[in-house]
């Protein structure tokens, strides 16, 4: 057992898979020599050499195009898109090419690749480098979408993503890179499509993802201490596949649902989850499901405004309390 940062967990997770399987390669902008702009891939070039750990030109299409070709011809590439906002630049590969190849070739051409990308706000990077875009990928048939919130989940879910036979988009949260967590020694392999109850509670279920998980947890502690409201917090972890069983079971026992999303409100992932719960667990609901989101705005760069826009512990507390009591 060791304490590890989220950032170091990325490097350890990649190393774990590259050591295990010689077909796993890693490419992206500044990932090799510089160890990544977020210093999340330090040491990989030294450990695995320039053939398997490659710096690329500043061309997202080239990165994903190369990764797709490598995956189609037998390798298991991990590609990094530095900021998830840039997924828009190479969206054709995501939306039309590698997400569809298995289906359109009747299984003859598989695409077992992982796209790692720095996602989310809170780091004052402005509207084009701070977006939370996991919902962009969630809506595309053929993609799997993962977003870990802890160092341990980074390693375990990255391993699961690399070993998955289909393309997985792996959202690392930029504002979590410096956070720490306990990680056991040895190989860690988790499962896609599994949510985790990170705090048990009886009065309401709060669904959260990535950076919103620690905020939801802090809000739950505050709600308990100040208002006696006992919230169950679920780290959704994987949007596709989605662990509806854990979520529905929780709602069936707490009877109230809140989602905490960094996505701008329109078509954020919470909308889909609320829709599933409203449909399947309707007669377990003892009040309206409520979404707590970033408003539908470009994320401001100014620290004060960015903090106002994203869901905060106080906003989560206030919304849950009002909805349960008012």
């Amino acid at each position, binding site marked *: 057992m060791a304490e590890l940062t989220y950032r170091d967990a990325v490097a350890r997770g990649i190393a774990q898979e590259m050591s295990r399987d010689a077909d796993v390669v890693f490419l992206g902008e500044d990932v090799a020599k510089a160890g990544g702009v977020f210093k999340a891939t330090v040491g990989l070039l030294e450990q695995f050499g320039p053939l398997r750990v490659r710096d690329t030109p500043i061309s997202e299409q080239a990165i994903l195009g190369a990764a797709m070709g490598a995956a189609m011809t037998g390798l298991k590439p991990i590609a990094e898109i530095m900021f998830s906002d840039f997924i828009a630049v190479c969206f054709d590969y995501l939306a039309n090419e590698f997400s569809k190849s298995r289906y359109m070739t009747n299984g003859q051409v598989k695409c077992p690749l992982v796209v790692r990308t720095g996602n989310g706000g809170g780091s004052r990077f402005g509207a084009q480098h701070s977006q939370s875009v996991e919902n962009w990928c969630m809506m595309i048939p053929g993609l799997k979408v993962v977003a870990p919130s802890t160092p341990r989940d980074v390693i375990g879910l990255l391993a699961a993503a690399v070993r998955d036979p289909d393309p997985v988009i792996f959202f690392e949260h930029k504002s979590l890179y410096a956070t720490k967590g306990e990680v056991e020694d040895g190989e860690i392999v988790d499962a896609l499509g*599994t949510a985790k109850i990170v705090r048990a509670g009886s009065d309401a279920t709060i669904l959260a993802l990535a950076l919103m998980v620690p905020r939801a947890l802090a809000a739950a502690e505050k709600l308990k201490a100040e208002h006696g409201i006992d919230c169950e917090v679920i780290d959704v972890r994987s949007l596709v596949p989605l662990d509806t069983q854990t979520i*529905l079971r*929780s709602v*069936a026992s707490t009877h109230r649902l809140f989602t905490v999303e960094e996505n701008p409100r329109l078509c954020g992932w919470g909308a889909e989850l609320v829709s599933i719960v409203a449909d*399947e*667990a309707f*007669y*377990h609901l*003892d009040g309206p499901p409520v979404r707590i989101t970033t408003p539908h705005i470009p994320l401001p760069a100014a620290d004060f405004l960015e903090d106002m826009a994203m869901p905060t512990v106080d906003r989560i507390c206030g919304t849950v309390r009002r909805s349960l009591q*008012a």
Partner: protein
Amino acid sequence: MDVLMPQLGETVTEGKVIKWFKSAGDAINSGDNLFEIETDKVSMEVPSIEAGVLTEIRVKEGEIAPVGGVVAVIGPPNGAAAPPVASSVPMPVPLAAKPTPAAPKVTAAAASAPRTPLKLGPFEEVRSPKRNFGPAKLPNGVTVTPLARRLAGEGGVALSRLKGSGPHGRIIGGDVEAALSSGAPRTMAPLPAAFADPVKSLYRGVPFEEIALDGMRQIVAARLLEAKQTIPHFYVSADADLERLLTLRDDTNAAAPKDTAGNPAFKLSINDLVIKAFAMALHRVPSANAVWASDRILQFRRVDIGIAVAVDGGLLTPVIRQAETKTVFEISFEMKDLAARARSRRLKPEEYQGGVASVSNLGMYGVSSFSAILNPPQSTILAVGAGQRRPAEIPGGGIRFTTQMTMTLSCDHRVVDGALGAELLTALKSIIENPVSMLI
């Protein structure tokens, strides 16, 4: 998964369980016979359409359940060892089953429980509830959460008798649980009548359009059903000669001052005069100017009369207060204002609540006579037909045609006995036939 009492015929409303083939705890395969039922028309064995474990028998041998009522509950197959059943979807959540005391409450531990992967078709990614537990809004305007509706439906709790403890008086799950544990009055298991399915099944293959109930329709339905079912109505009718009343109306209207555009300052209607006459009659017969109040009668000095106003999608009954003290002109002006605001739905509740009696006039549609349902808590309602030319015997013999109308008084027999109802109607007839008294 709830096992429901099946519909065994168009007119069958309940069935009796005469034999159980399975016991609680038994594993059930789809197609296994569960129980045998008997109705006044038929007896048959009921097979399961789900696989799983029979977790609860709600209706034992010899007991009766309404059609659509929950007879038993089938839970998902036991443990992880049970193979996933391809043909049926084991519920991930105990969607239907109420947690039995033995079942542990779902906690964090459940997350580590073995997962049974669900096999879902591409068009069945979401499993909607297979039953409906009634509307969110009760006829009395109180809202009920989905959880509370399900618990009430499964437990047979009459929601209309509960007081909501949730925000804005919402009835929440806890309120129903409290009622269940306190042994509050129950309806006969879930009310199948509340569900449209049994009715729709009678019209299978017949095209129809479903019209959702708005709040007004729900209230009208609930109040009138309650009135007709719980108030002992009786009816008395009489014809009134309108000749003098019409003359009075025509002369008065003809004498109305006109403004520069030629519009008269007022225009009295027969209805205005009938309201005034009915108010005077109730004033003259004070015993009938009263309402039933469960364990006593409330008798009034003043006469507040409601007037049924047809509005888009229903009706409202605004009340003219102290009508016995108001002139026909005052009543006429007030009636025009109330009717206009009723049609635009801008009446305040205090303007249509209370009252001791009502007038319902369908004369303008040409009906000869009809009988009306009382508007609770009022004790009488006057149903007014059209003025029609009818033959009448004149003093000294012979026949003359006069304008007459038939009035039918509906009475709450708890307050107004037959003789009293007759006395009231006779007083009314006398005032209408001698209308000058209205002006005094």
